[in-house]
Every structure is written in C-alpha cells, then in structure tokens.
C-alpha cells in the first residue's frame, strides 16, 4: 500500500467527519436488508445458505468499518483554474474540473444529512462521466463554496 497514487503539492480540504454517520447507517441498513433477503436460502436446509448470509454480514461489517476512513479520504481543493476532488481508498479517483466547464451546481440535503447540519454538493458538466460530488460539507461552507464556484465559473465561462 505504499505506492498509493497521490498528488504531491495538494492541500486538501476534508469534508466533515460527521458525514461518516449517514454513510455508515446507509451501508449498514442496505447490508442488513440484503442479509435478510438471503435468509430465504436457509429454507433449502443446505449449509451454503447460512454461509451466504454470513459472508454478506462480514462484508457489510468491513464496509461499515472502513467508512470513517473513506470519509476522511474525501477531499477537495480550489486550485487556480479548476476544482480538484479526490475520493476513495481502495478505488482512488481524482477529478479536475475546470471552473469554466461547470454547467450547474446542486446543493442537496437529505433528512439525516440535514439533521447533522451538512449538505451534499454536486457538479454537472457537459460530460456525464465527470460525476463530481462533494458530500458532507457543513451547510454554511456549502453555501459559500457554491457561491464562490458559481462566481469562478462566471468569470471563466467557456463554451462546450
């Protein structure tokens, strides 16, 4: 794990550590639902029915356990001409979106995220594959970041 990809001169702004709670909750819930569905295989009376459920529970445990680390790994940085976003530990991904390429910026707030005082930011470019989101930004920061990015996008507006 020493050869992890990293960008040397990047100073990341991390998202709120509170964001791990909704993430862990949703992973735990979906893991339990899948495990409950797999319980139907128990009726076959075979040993692998239980093995499947156990495997699902173990995987869910791992995913939930690693969630705080994954949330810590989410970061963004406003560079001079573009927004740099990083995500992931195992599947690492860095995206650089030039400000002029942003078509619109969404601020989303689900009930749980809102209860924690957070917002999710989503950036849309003309390319569907850009898929840039910054989840778990404190509400005030999110508003400020959105306004700042809109302002930057205005000043560097480019065509398609």
């Amino acid at each position: 794990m020493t050869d992890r990809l990293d960008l040397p001169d990047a100073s990341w702004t991390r998202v709120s550590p509170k964001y791990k709670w909704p993430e862990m909750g949703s992973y735990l819930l979906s893991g339990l639902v899948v495990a409950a569905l797999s319980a139907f295989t128990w009726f076959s009376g075979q040993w692998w029915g239980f093995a499947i459920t156990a495997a699902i529970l173990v995987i869910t445990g791992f995913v939930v356990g690693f969630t705080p680390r994954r949330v810590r790994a989410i970061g963004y940085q406003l560079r001079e001409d573009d927004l740099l976003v990083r995500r992931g530990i195992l599947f690492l991904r860095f995206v650089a979106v030039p400000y002029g390429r942003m078509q619109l910026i969404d601020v989303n707030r689900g009930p749980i995220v809102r209860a924690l005082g957070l917002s999710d930011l989503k950036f849309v470019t003309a390319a569907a594959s850009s898929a840039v989101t910054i989840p778990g930004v404190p509400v005030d920061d999110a508003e400020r970041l959105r306004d700042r990015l809109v302002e930057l996008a205005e000043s560097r507006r480019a065509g398609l």
Partner: protein
Amino acid sequence: MSHPSLARGPAVVLTDGEWHRLHPATPLLRGGIVLVAILFFVLNTEKDNLLQLFLPAPGGGRGDGGGRGDSDAGDPVAYVVGHGFIGLALAGIALLILILLAIFYASWRMNTFRVTDETVEVRSGIVFRSNRRARLDRIQGINIQRSLFARVFGAAKLEINQAGHDANVPLAYLGSAAAEDVRREILRRASGARESAPERPGGAGGVGLVEQRLHEFLAAPLGEGQVAPHSVVTMRLGRLIGSALLSGFTLFLAAVVAAVVISIATTGQYFLLIVFFPTLLGSFSFYSRRVVKSLRYSIAATPDGIRVGWGLLATSNETLPPGRIHSIRLSQPLLWRPFGWWEVKINRASHSSTKGADGQANTTILPVGSALDVSRVLGLILPELVGLPAVDAALATSPRRASPVPVSLEKGETGDARALAAEKPERAVAESRTALSLIEAGMTSSGGDGGFTTSPRRAQWIRWFSWRRNGFRTAPGSILLRKGAIWRQLVVVPLPRVQSVSIRQGPLLRRLRLAAIDLHTVQGPITAQIGALDAGDARVFFESASHDAVVAARADRTHRWFDQQAAGLPWAPPTSDQRLPDPSREEHP
C-alpha cells in the same frame, strides 16, 4: 404579426428577421405521404372487392348470396358493400380526408419561423402552441435532409442541431435551394463574420422547372453551394462492400451459421433453421443499408466547417462548424487490417435525427477509408493538428520545445505557414509531413515511436498484447491516446473540448504501480480513457492535461469561428488577455 411570406424566395428574404412560412407543399409532404400510403394499402388489399364492385362476380366465385354474410363477417369492406352503404362510406372517407387536409393546412399556416442576427425561432402547433428559440452561436451543426418524396417536390428539411437531448430546431420543409441559402446565411451569422456572403449567382431564370428539379435531384448529397465543395474522399464500391462483409457482424453471423450446422449435425433436428432464416434476411438488410447509405458518402471543407453527405435515394448532408467535434476515434477492426482500412467516429454534443451508416446516431464521419483518406479527413476536422496551422504550431514551438505551456500559441510567436510556404516551400512541406506523421505514427506504431509515452513492461499482466502500444502523447491542441494491438485504435481529444480529467487507481493497478486516465467529453460512442500507465507518468499527464485543457478552453474562440480570421489569425487562438471585443457575446450560465 405581419403577413408571413412563403418560403420560396432566396434566403435574403427568408432570413430578414420577419416571420415566414414553410414550403407550401409541406402539408402534402408531411401528411400526404401517409394518405397516399393508406390509399395504396386499401386499394391493394381490397382490390378483389373493388373488382367485384365494378364487374359482375364470376360465376361460382366466392360471393354467392347467403354464403357471403358468414365468410366475410370480419371484413368491413365486404360488410359495407353487402349492405349497400357504399355512398355513406365514400362520403365518410371523403370527409375524413377533408378534415385531415384541413388540419395539415392549419398546421402549416401556424408553423412559422424567423432568423434574426442572434437567434432562430420557430412557432408551431394548432392547439398546443410551442415556440422554440435557439441561439446561433450555440449551433452544433445544420443538417439538410431530403427524403425521396421530398426530392421529387424539390423540398428539403433543414435541421438546426443544438447541444442536448431533443434540442434540435427542425424546419420542414423548405425549398431545396432556399434551404441551402438559409443554412449558409445562418452559419455566416453564427460565425461572427461581418460582411454579407456574396449573392447566389443567377437563380432559376430561363431554366425550366423540370430541368431545375432534375438538376437538384441529380446533384450530389453535398448540396449545391455557390462553390461546389469538393469531396476529399471518394468512396469505392468494392471497398464499401468489403468493409461491410469484413465487419464484426460477419463474425457473429458465421458463429450463428456454425452453431446451426453443429446443432443439425448432432441432433438431426431442423427447427433452428426457423430461427436462422429471419436472421439471414435481417443481415442482408443490414449489409444493403450500410452499403447504400455510404455509397455517395462525401466529406468536404466549406468556409463554415466540414460538410458530410450521405445517402443514395434519401440524402442528408450536414455542416459541422469548427470546434463542434468533441473527440475522434480512428479504429481498425481485425479483419480490415490486411487492407489497411480505418473507420473514423466522433463524439458530438447534439443528437441529429438522421441515422448514420449503421442506422445508429450520426457519429460516423468516415465509414471506411485508407490511411490517406483518414489523414485527409483529419486535416478537415482537426486542422490545428494536421493541417496548415499545424505547421504554424510546429514552427512556433520548435525553437522552444521546453515551453511550460506547449499548447497555447501566443500571437507574436505564431509562425506563418503560408508565408513560409511562399518562401521555403520544401521546409513547409517537411513540417507538414511531420504533423501528418504524428497521426500516421499513432495509427500503427508501437513503443516509443511517434513520441508516445507507453505502459511499462509490468503492465503486460493486464495488457497482454498491447502493453507496448498502449500510450498517450500531447500534440498541438490535442491529446492522442493510442490503444489496442489487435483491435487498433487511436483516440484524439481536442483540448478545448475536454470537460474534466480524472485519474484513478484500483487495487489491481496499485499492486502493479499503474494508474488510469479518463478524459471526459460529451457522451458518444467514444470513451477517451487509457489504462495501465505508469503511476508517475499518469500523474504528470493528469497535471499537464488538466492545465492544458484550461488554457486551451480559455483561448478557444470557435463558437464565433470567423472572428479570429478577421483578426488575421488563421485558427491560432488568441490568449485570454487578447480577447477580441465581441458585443454580441452573452455571458450567461
């Protein structure tokens, strides 16, 4: 609203900013075809009954008195004839046709359009009115389609393509010549060129209507501009048929045949043949469609971008202004390799309603061509990479190759290829060869040839055959991704069109100290990504590509493509601080 005039006159009248109506034959062309088809169908299926109506029934035929009521119970025509409702039925049909005609006529009356200096606007609908206005500088392409029926009437459908789903502005139908004029005028205004285009020389004066129609009918699908554009690629029938037969679909068909033969041989059952015959018929139509569609393919340069023409009976030709192509892929299926054929596809922001050679969205720009054809086509669609401006760029960068910003050309440093060509022709030729060889090298080379940075040796675990070929390089204004040893392809992404850049690494790539790069462009058949690069190389590439994309996008002026030429810069983009004043440009999100 002033009285809209008919769309028959020259474009000077049609594009004067007033509301105009479409071609008067529009109701007939839109709805008439359906009516004629229905009439034909009815006549065809009921010809027995019609014969019986006017001729005495042959003795001992099917209609003998009482038997008719039972046997023809489900046939409405027989019922009508049998019960003496002919007059009523005919009146009903006539009324229906009249109502339909009235609706079509009203729809034509209500369908008006106008072209102003900034926008094109269409109003349509009788009950549900709609009004669509499109900005001229956001045009992604203008397509003129002529169905066989429309060609007989000398009409054409003009379609202005805008970025996005269902974002096209159709003008159906205009007069054939008027459509050409309107397109040229719209493109002229969109380009930001100030002076008006010269008038079309002599209209239809003195020439008979039939002769004119015939002339239009026989004209190549490129359209009849004032200067007939010369296609740089000629499609050969043999090559076209060969390429269709040697496509992946043939492999699939061969597999199906093999499966059928094996199944018959082993089981002795013939039921699979029932499945097989429709497949065979379908494949025949696939081949014929592909060949017929591409038979009169042509591609040419016009002052307002490239023009691509398709079709034998129903023709379409589309003008793509500069800077509307978001990525380009040259690919060579395995079976084409002995012949050296290539296919060129593009990603574009608009979705034209015409279909391409394979019945897919119109993203094929060269269905099949030799390496020479490919370089000619690329010379049109990427002039900054292989054309004369590429020589400019090569001259500008050659004394200072270590420039931190190799892509952006500043005004003072731009060499002038035309001047050079006049003074030292041999050097200009040599420079343009270098620029051309860039693409040619990318098509077939492997290893470090052609300046590509390739995957390291350890990448052969995941790129078994292609690790030597898998690579990238930056070129003036573009990024080249070279991939595939068996199915060769070269993806070219113009830097000003890159929407965002990403670098990623999963567990497998990390173990091998590799990384993958994605260049995000608008959606299309091409995904510009390259995997299995050395992690260090990939990081450097990510940094330089994301920086170059910003610089190139800032310098890009193609949405008003003639403005830069007015400033005496052949394609070389001005930098941000040298922006030309453009009062018409709106800064809005």
